[in-house]
């Protein structure tokens, strides 16, 4: 089974072991991994004698089975936002999108309000190409203005709010598609 794991702008293809399929690998490199779930969400991984600890937070409701699974991984002191999806499905969607002229890679990231507040501004519009770190929504909350930025490069798929609007915590504000 081939899975596509996206971390920021990087995509790693992970091949999981299967009786019929190819040997397990990460990013093309074969791995012999010894993985144990210590307790839910906490893993001990030994690869070629090196010991790793990884903790996972699930992100998002997972309500849409076709959308990539969003997870946050804590590994070696780094906090990584990951999106996992079936590699074949992803490649197919990308191919179809390319044929129809769009640059979307499939699967949109939802930018949600981290806390209740008021939308002070939305400096982008649907269809805009944005870079990682670019400001998408400016939120006024707790007596200060905060810029919500793009976690990866992409195209603004949908703007769900307008300036002046009050929003709840976790309310979706904007959807950002990945670009090829």
């Amino acid at each position, binding site marked *: 089974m081939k899975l596509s794991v996206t971390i920021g702008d990087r995509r790693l293809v992970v091949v999981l072991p299967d009786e019929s399929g190819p040997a397990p690998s990460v990013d093309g490199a074969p791995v012999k991994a010894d993985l144990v779930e210590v307790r839910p969400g906490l893993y001990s991984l030994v690869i070629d004698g090196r010991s790793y600890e990884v903790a996972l937070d699930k992100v998002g409701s997972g309500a849409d089975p076709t959308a990539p699974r969003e997870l946050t991984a804590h590994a070696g*002191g780094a906090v990584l936002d990951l999106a996992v999806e079936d590699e074949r499905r992803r490649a197919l969607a990308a191919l179809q999108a390319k044929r129809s002229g769009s640059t979307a890679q499939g699967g949109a990231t939802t930018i949600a309000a981290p806390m209740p507040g008021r939308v002070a501004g939305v400096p982008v519009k649907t269809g805009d190409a944005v870079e990682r770190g670019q400001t998408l929504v400016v939120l006024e909350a707790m007596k200060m203005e905060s810029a919500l930025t793009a976690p990866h490069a992409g195209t603004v798929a949908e703007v769900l709010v307008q300036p002046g609007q009050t929003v709840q915590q976790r309310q979706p504000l904007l959807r950002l598609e990945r670009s090829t």
Partner: protein
Amino acid sequence: MFSRVLVANRGEIALRVMRSASALGWRTVAIHTDLDRAALHVRAADAAVRVESYLNAEAILAAAQKSEAQAIHPGYGFLSENPAFARACRDEGIVFVGPSPEAMALMGDKVAARQLAASVGVPTVPGTPEPVTEDAAAAKAAAAIGYPLLIKAAAGGGGKGMRAVRSAKELLPSLAQARSEAAASFGDGSVYLEKLVERPRHIEVQLFGDGTGRVEHLGERECSIQRRYQKVVEESPAPDLPDDVRRAMWRAAVDAASAAKYAGAGTIEFLYESSTQRFYFLEMNARLQVEHPVTEQVTGVDLVQAQLRLASGSPLDEALWGEAGGPIENPKSGDPRERVIQNPVHAIEARIYAEDPFNSWLPSTGTLGVVRESGGLGVRVDSACEPGQEVTVYYDPLLAKLIAWGRSRDEAIARLRRALDEYLLTGVRTSLPFHRWLVRDEAFLKADLSTAFIAERWRPDEVASAAPENQMHAAALVAAHAAAPGRLVVAPRTPPNGRAPLAGAAPSDSNWRRAARRDALR
């Protein structure tokens, strides 16, 4: 000596105060809101009373009466610097663990505090003693102060309502703007002028007084690593500070607190300008501060116990030093305001906030997953975090404080680095990745500090994309497994003699269970 104290606070500080009170043999009373019913500080106390809010003075006093507490410790934040509350405690015959309402009110009034400091010869930041109302007077005052200067809203605070002016021609337009912004933000357009100390270091002195004018200092702390005027990392002693400046700060702090007849623990904050070696009084905090553990590790003094002892009538030396013996005369001078601790260590504190340092430090909410705090030699964690705990926007985002110490600054940093690497806290974004970067940053290691440090040096995008390759591969592998469980070969947790493991792996992972299932199918 009292026997029962109510802790009018929550989270890590409530737990910390209760620990010291219990060690003295006192009973503790917790207060909690409905949101905090399941919080650790409630279970840590001997008694608990529900209140509407941690800011409701009447409810807290009623809780103290009901639980027969003789004293109230306010912690920090909430009502800790509220003179009306301190006065109400006094009126009700309950001991408020802190300074008198009068001293608290004096120190809380910024203008009055500066005047007090100036009256005992403590240098203050040059500025206008009162708000400036006329342009002509403002221009004259500005010329006397010199440029660059700050226009500050009199009703502002916490770093808000300040505007920098770099030259005389900017003054009047900036004044007009500042006045209208202040009126809009604070409902009061009054502004005053103050010298802008360039790239200052924030250095503060811990004090402890007995209310009669006698005050001891417990060394200084460097708190320059700040974002939006909020401290993120503190250490003691202040590194790379000339000894005569250090001693002069101690003397100045002692003199000012002494003049106010301050009782209990308090801190005087200074701005220090390295280029001129001058320091200026900023303000006094009439309460125990968040970063007090750093001073405790350096001096060996339990500041909360000292507060509790003093409040229940112990004389100053006994409250502070107990049987351990106090500081010794400074070999450089016989001045009692310059006494020093024997065998001091270097201590550093990293504040762990539920904030995302990669996204403008926005507060992060969620449910804590794994909580594994650091341990081992030279490490202290002040925390009340537990797995499953809800982190909301309703309370301060400070989750925990990680303190490390060593015989030298380098040793303290090395221990802090190790402690940060082993700290695991999931479920919310935290400042931990920032701290892990900081303890490897060249300027921090060289102690090249100023309050502009984070603004100048923290580059979130660069740090985010610098995660080690092998860790990314490990994370990708685990995430893939989590998304498609049962596909990756999982090492069986084979129990030694066929019994079920005590800390079970997930059912599908256990060889024992697989064998049992296989047998059942036969």
